[in-house]
């Protein structure tokens, strides 16, 4: 096990203006094992959205850390989360990504459970010569020790020793509202999920979502393609949401956006987009302003990259993506990704959203590969212990302010810290929130 001290991994001295992270936390397999135990298998983890199990007896499967999980909707409409493992011999009970089943029959010895997790049959029970002690034990699927839903976002924990889901999400819940409130009917995942892996640590994805600094460096080829399409627009190319914004050129003046940091490691970075017809949401612009007020409507149109620590990211920029981060090892990560969209949008808006998504977000698109290959280059560099401290947590240190600002006030939202930035500030202090939560969760497992 890792013998070093926490102070050798994260150096957090706000009074001296120092925040540094060691390469070791991305590279050390012992630290990875501790992260699985202390973060992924002992705290709130995003499981999926409620519409993935919309009807009675619908279900979907996922993982929490290394543990297989089954989410079901029972016959009364209630959602449940279970460890997807038969109490008999441990086999996964449900093996498919999603489906509908009143009964889940374990494929190994046919123990059978209903959609509320209750054991309905033990094969040849009477003939089994079971002891009284066996009969006194529950044979139901083990429910997740903590399970909850907020506005259609479903979370679970393998430990009961967690704050309430409301406390865990805190003020960042208002950013989930901005997603959920885009339609009165809520949101859904567009059919067709995309899964990819990269050979680097999961925290690189955590950071990249919040990283405004890389955009013009990593994605110039995508930006040039958009510019070219804009100059010669025709029906064969999709409109870009960046068309009416100079956010990405790095040349806009005044407040271009900023960042918010929340308790428990949640962060947002955002940019002003304006009410552009290139956004699929444009068809609802007036309706949303009437229902939610102009300020909240404008926020829905802003570029927003939200992380709910540690495994959920919702990126609303070139299109709208829901990502689930699944760490596989210190040096390998799986990303499960979907296009998330408001229910009931027009066929034309949906088509535009999907086209914008594929070009930007897919591992077969024109942007994500330039991120993931960069993560892999970082991972190579993390092998070095010559100068272990990384310097990528320093931008914005003199701009970071406690509390919110006029833009968060417009949402009635009170973050722990905020940064207002022009196009070139590209705050890096929002990562501090990730690593302060990381340190809090790892304390005790790693020496202080």
């Amino acid at each position, binding site marked *: 096990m890792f013998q070093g001290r926490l102070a050798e991994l994260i150096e957090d001295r706000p009074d001296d203006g120092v925040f540094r992270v060691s390469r070791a936390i991305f590279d050390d397999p012992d630290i990875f094992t501790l992260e699985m135990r202390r973060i992924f298998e002992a705290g709130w983890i995003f499981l999926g959205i409620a519409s993935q199990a919309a009807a009675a007896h619908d279900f979907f499967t996922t993982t929490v850390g290394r543990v297989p999980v089954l989410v079901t909707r029972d016959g009364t409409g209630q959602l449940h989360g279970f460890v997807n493992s038969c109490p008999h011999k441990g086999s996964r009970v449900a093996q498919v990504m999603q489906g509908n089943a009143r009964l889940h029959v374990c494929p190994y010895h046919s123990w059978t459970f209903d959609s509320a997790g209750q054991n309905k049959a033990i094969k040849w029970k009477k003939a089994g010569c079971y002891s009284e002690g066996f009969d006194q034990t529950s044979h139901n699927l083990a429910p997740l020790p903590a399970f909850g839903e907020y506005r259609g976002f479903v979370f679970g924990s393998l430990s009961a020793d967690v704050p309430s889901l409301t406390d865990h999400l805190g003020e960042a819940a208002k950013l989930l509202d901005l997603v959920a409130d885009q339609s009165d009917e809520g949101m859904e995942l567009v*059919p067709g999920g995309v899964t990819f892996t990269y050979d680097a640590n999961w925290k690189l994805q955590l950071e990249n979502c919040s990283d405004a600094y890389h955009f013009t460096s990593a994605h110039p080829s995508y930006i040039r393609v958009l510019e070219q399409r804009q100059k010669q627009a025709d029906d064969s190319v999709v409109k870009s949401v960046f068309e009416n914004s100079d956010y990405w050129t790095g040349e806009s003046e005044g407040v271009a956006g900023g960042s918010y940091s929340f308790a428990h490691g949640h962060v947002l970075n955002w940019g002003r987009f304006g009410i552009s017809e290139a956004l699929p949401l444009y068809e609802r612009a007036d309706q949303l302003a009437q229902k939610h007020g102009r300020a909240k409507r404008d926020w829905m149109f802003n570029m927003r990259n939200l992380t709910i620590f540690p495994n959920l990211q919702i990126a609303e920029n070139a299109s709208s993506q829901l990502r689930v981060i699944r760490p596989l090892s210190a040096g390998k990560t799986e990303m499960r990704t979907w296009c998330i969209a408001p229910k009931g949008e027009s066929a034309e808006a949906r088509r535009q959203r999907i086209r914008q998504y594929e070009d930007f977000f897919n591992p*077969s698109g024109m942007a994500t590969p330039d991120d993931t290959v960069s993560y892999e280059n970082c991972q190579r560099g993390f092998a070095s212990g010559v100068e272990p401290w990384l310097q990528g947590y320093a931008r914005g240190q003199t701009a970071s302010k406690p509390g919110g600002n006029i833009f968060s006030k417009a949402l009635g939202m009170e973050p722990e810290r905020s940064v207002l930035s022009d196009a070139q500030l590209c705050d890096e202090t929002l990562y501090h929130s990730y690593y302060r939560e990381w340190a809090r969760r790892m304390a005790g497992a790693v020496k202080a």
Partner: protein
Amino acid sequence: MSGPLTRAEAEDLLYREALVLDRGEWDAWLELYTTDAIFWMPAWRDEVTPTSDPDSELSLIYYRGRRNLEDRVWRARSGMSVASSPLPRVVHAVTNVVLESADETGGRTASSFTVHLHDRRSERSHVFFGRYEHHLVHHDGAWRIAAKKILLLNDVIPTVVDFYSI
């Protein structure tokens, strides 16, 4: 050339497409497509069902119009995409070619593909495999690709998949 599309002609076009992709002769590759060509790689709804309606379901790639493929070629050559430079080495093998329909104007083929890829930078080799469906049409004295559907069967993508590796 006259008469209905033959299997030999269809195979010749499919093998040529494979060869020019393997050689990185992307201008020649684009020339094989009509200007209004559809280039489509569906995603998967679940373990067994690929997406089938690109307007309401997600695809890995969906383009209507060769211009979009030209953008992809431009990007891969631009020197501004770290994922595309240096390029991996690829070899396409197209097999089991069946001519499913044919007449004087064109025809449809089904085939199987494997693409072996070696990325020297990441010291990683991978095989993408699946099935192609080509719609070929007669245009300007040659058979060209009016539509190509790539059904990628192993769709957990190791970091990158691009037009040259499918």
